[in-house]
């Protein structure tokens, strides 16, 4: 195992003290250390939001792009070099709001990246509007009479579209989350972890207490990860008890394995063959 301090950097963290993102950050570092992926051999891609700042706070390659658009960037980067592991960090607004269409497409492509959604059920960086996962009626300055939409259900959504690796983590269970992330990185195909993340500044409902009371570790002897129906039922239950862990896993064909061109190695490493192009031109 690599020394986790290799992933530390001295760039000033900009999150609120007590923010659940710290737990996620630690879990990511620990997962990379456990998997011996050196900082320069991993790529983090993110959208915009508090969650999306994550890559700045550890040692790694990163592309911190636009609100909602991390997945297309990740798809492009994946096509350029399918040997480089990619983690995508998005907020719930980022991923399920602005970026919803790309999420659907990423599922359909089965792009081989690991998507970590820091799901604090609120828009943190813009100071506390209801996010797509906020409860119906969640009241904020922007929604003084409560959020009017039902919350998005990310795990049922992923199940419905045949995603092959679906998990839920909790920022308050860093080691557990680290293990999930390791499994997700190791999974060949699209892997997605919806992470219950506490926002101490803008979400007074889904607090540490709220989750500590409700969250329980999935018992692998009771719920088998290949049981799709069980997974669906588990994730459609109310919030009295919230299971965390690997909810569903199956084998799939990852995106880059679907593309014949990529059989010859990453695009980035291929060489240019002017003669072949000239032959095309001459043949016109």
């Amino acid at each position, binding site marked *: 195992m690599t020394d986790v301090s290799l992933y530390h950097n001295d760039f000033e963290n900009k999150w609120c003290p007590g923010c659940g993102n710290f737990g996620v950050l630690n879990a990511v570092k620990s997962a990379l250390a456990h998997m011996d992926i050196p900082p320069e051999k991993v790529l983090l891609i993110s959208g915009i939001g508090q969650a999306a700042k994550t890559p700045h706070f550890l040692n790694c390659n*990163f592309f911190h792009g636009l609100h909602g658009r991390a997945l297309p960037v990740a798809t492009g980067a994946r096509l350029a070099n399918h040997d480089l592991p990619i983690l995508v960090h998005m907020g719930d607004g980022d991923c399920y709001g602005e970026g919803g269409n790309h999420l659907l497409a990423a599922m359909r492509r089965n792009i081989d990246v690991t998507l970590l959604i820091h799901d604090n059920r609120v828009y943190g960086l813009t100071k506390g509007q209801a996010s797509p996962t906020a409860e119906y009626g969640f009241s904020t300055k922007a929604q003084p009479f409560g959020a009017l939409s039902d919350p998005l259900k990310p795990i049922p959504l992923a199940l419905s579209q045949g995603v092959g690796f679906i998990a839920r983590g909790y920022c308050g269970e860093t080691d557990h989350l680290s293990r999930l992330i390791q499994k997700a990185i190791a999974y060949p195909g699209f892997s997605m972890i919806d992470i219950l993340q506490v926002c101490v500044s803008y979400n007074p409902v889904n607090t540490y207490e709220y989750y500590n009371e409700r969250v329980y570790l999935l018992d692998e002897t009771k719920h088998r990860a290949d049981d799709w129906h069980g997974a669906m039922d588990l994730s459609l239950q109310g919030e009295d008890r919230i299971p965390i862990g690997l909810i569903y896993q199956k084998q799939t064909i990852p995106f880059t394995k679907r593309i014949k061109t990529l059989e010859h190695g990453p695009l980035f490493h291929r060489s240019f063959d*002017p003669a072949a192009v000239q032959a095309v031109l001459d043949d016109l």
Partner: protein
Amino acid sequence: MDIDVTVTIGGAAGQGIQTVGDLLASVCHRAGLYLMVINDFESRIRGGHSFMQLRISDEPVVAADDKIHLLVALNRETFDIHAGELAEGGRILMEEDGAGGSDEALHVVDVKFTNLAEKAGGKIMTNTVAAGAALEMLGAPAELVVKVIESHFGGKSKSVLENNLKAIQMGRDAVANTDFDWHFKWPDRKPAGKMLSGARALALGALAADCRVASFYPMSPATEILVYLAGFMDRFPLVVEQAEDEIAAINMAIGASFGGVRAMTATSGGGFSLMVEGLGLAGITETPVVVINAQRPGPATGLPTRTAQGDLFFVIHAAQDEFPRFVFAPRTLDEAFETMIRSFHLAEKYQVPVIVLVDQYFNDSLSITREKWSVPEKIERFLVSDADMPDPSSYKRFAYSESGVSPRAVPGAGRARVMVTGNDHTEEGHLSETIADRNGQVDKRHKKMLKMAEEMNGPDILFGDSRLLLVTWGSTDGVVREAVNRLRKEKHDVGAVFFSDIWPFPTAPAMDALSGCEGFLTVELNASSQLGGLIRRHTGLQADGAIVQYDGRPMKPGHVVARTKQYMEGGQ
């Protein structure tokens, strides 16, 4: 020009106009003739009215003509719509001779397309019969026609080929010995160049530029560029991927470019609108990316299958705030091919987005290349790797530099970590909100503009010391060129100035080109004369008038000639 014939083939979508046109074009091309083929179709798959117009010559042609010499009417509507455009002495090939007693009915040559096709083996060959008749009218040599049919239908079953050979012969026999003023003696030369569409020239340019990821969302008239490119995925290190929307398309290209390969996307105005935020992302992250915007009339859906040049200011200023970009508007097939190679090169050299501005007329027209296309021997990537750095672990993606260009490394390629953000940032690539970093990075980016401006070619000039100059850009080049030639034949002192390098605006050469004349008129396919505005903004020179058109159709030389004369007679 000894030969200069315009053939128009019209009918409903789905009737196979394309086949007639392609056969005619192939025969002409193989005979060593020059061609310009324009496509006019509606936004529907079947029915309505479409046509293809071929101008055939023994010399290079750069524009469609105003008059039709031979009209091939696959239905009655075509007659109604186009008969009025017939040149004196022109003829009409069609099925019914009873063309309503109109004057034009006199010019009809009755060919029973369907009957003959059925005799040849099936109604589906109607268009082959029509092609045969048209080729015979023009005097095309029999062997050449047979050769073209053989290569066109060679891949099909033997009976298909045989039936089509029969059909073409029947078409030819049906009009044998018909008088036609434009029946000409065919040369026996090698093809003058390659025959292809603008869209394909762009795709081939991308291939020659070593583009490796091309993401797109289908949108006329851009789709064909990447659809054609997709066909090369099996033979080259290339992935062409259809995105879920245009926002994804540009962000995917940016991701691929960041990931280390050359990448592009192509769309039309509506899709470009959706790419605007991503364009800014490429700007601030200094990620090279090539974006083709194939213009059509708008706003919104507008006329999806028609042409326009209405996006000039839009693409120059698209996205919040300011950042350097290139805008090129290639005018010919050769220039399009070269522009793509140059765009990818300059995108990487300056780490900026490049917009290639074309249009439906350009993309969908077929013509003949003039120059031999050659592929760069080596692709200069302007990348750095660990070996170039004293200490890879302290690599700064956005380091300040004399030229404003910072060293660009590829993530995962070495020990250097590559850190990039769409927020304002430090030299390392970390978030920053300080005045120093903001000003430093803005200044760094803007510095690049100075060098970029030096890369710009001035406008192309035709009879630049004329009293009156016509000033245009992009694909309207050919029409203006022909108009100038016609005007000069009539002894008018008219020249022209053609812009293809648009942004950074080549101010000094534009000044040079325009300050000598007594007056100039802009010629554009938009309502407000955007090039005129751009010229005034940068040079202070004001056009004396503008010849504009915004009906979605390509301009015709005759129109430019007429409007220019009107201006000269003081009628503007």
